[in-house]
């Protein structure tokens, strides 16, 4: 069954079609979310949110882009929303802790270990993910989609609704920033 007939069936409320959609795209959505938020628990939560939104708003999908592009867009948006919510909570907890109401400040999670990274590269990947977190939002999205999901610049430009040359520029700046940050990091380590 192709994407279109699945989507048409889902628009008519067919649960079997929804199950096929979840089974087909769950790894893609989960892996993208994990690459963005660096927490397995949060990635699972985002994946659920994405599919709930797909179920509820599939009627708004007009087919101007590929279904996978639409899914990537929802995932990236949800992941960014999730991060903003988390930051807001963190700030709020910090303010509350200043007034001594007993609430603890949420600390940063420990270094992120992506389960799909090759064993001999795990330590380097941990450092890289730490540095990716410091990139500006657009550079982070482009870099993550390219490196973690293996998407081409063309696909990324469709997801981010921009041109291929803009994605090339984002990737170039992302790599430069990472190089600079890594250099500082390693120099401090020595």
């Amino acid at each position, binding site marked *: 069954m192709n994407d279109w007939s699945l989507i048409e069936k889902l628009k008519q409320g067919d649960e079997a079609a929804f199950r096929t959609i979840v089974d087909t795209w769950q790894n893609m959505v989960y892996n993208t979310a994990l690459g963005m938020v660096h927490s397995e628990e949060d990635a699972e939560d985002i994946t659920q949110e994405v599919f709930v939104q797909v179920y509820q708003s599939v009627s708004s999908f007009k087919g101007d882009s590929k279904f996978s592009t639409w899914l990537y867009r929802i995932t990236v948006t949800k992941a960014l929303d999730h991060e903003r919510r988390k930051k807001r909570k963190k700030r709020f907890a910090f303010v509350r802790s200043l007034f001594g109401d007993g609430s603890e400040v949420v600390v940063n999670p420990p270094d992120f270990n992506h*389960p799909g990274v090759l064993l001999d590269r795990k330590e380097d990947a941990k450092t890289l993910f730490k540095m990716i977190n410091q990139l500006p939002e657009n550079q982070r999205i482009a870099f993550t989609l390219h490196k973690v999901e293996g998407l081409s610049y063309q696909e990324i430009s469709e997801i981010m609704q921009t041109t291929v040359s803009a994605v090339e520029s984002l990737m170039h700046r992302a790599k430069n920033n990472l190089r600079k940050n890594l250099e500082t990091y390693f120099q401090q380590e020595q």
Partner: protein
Amino acid sequence: MKPGKNIEKRIGQTLNSLDGIRRAEPKPWLYTRIMKRLDKEEDRSIWGAISSFLARPAVAIVGLCLILVLNGFLLFNEQQDSDNLAIEQVVDSESLMASSSSFEYENLVQP
């Protein structure tokens, strides 16, 4: 200043550390958890729709008017009931007096 050879090597290694990465997979039974969440969201959206409908100014004003009209109607009814009761009591007492007087009249010993 250019970084040392060692640092340059480490930077290269780190930047390439995601090469050959495999996709991470979620825990099993994701579909079941999504359906559970959907049910919860639908429940929430039904209650949300009801409360937002009730919160509309027009609906709220009409509701308030209905309550006032109902209150007025009940008050009016109560007033009428109490008036009717008073009339009934007067009628009852008068008929009692009448019957007792007729009884006395009937029981009059004729000389």
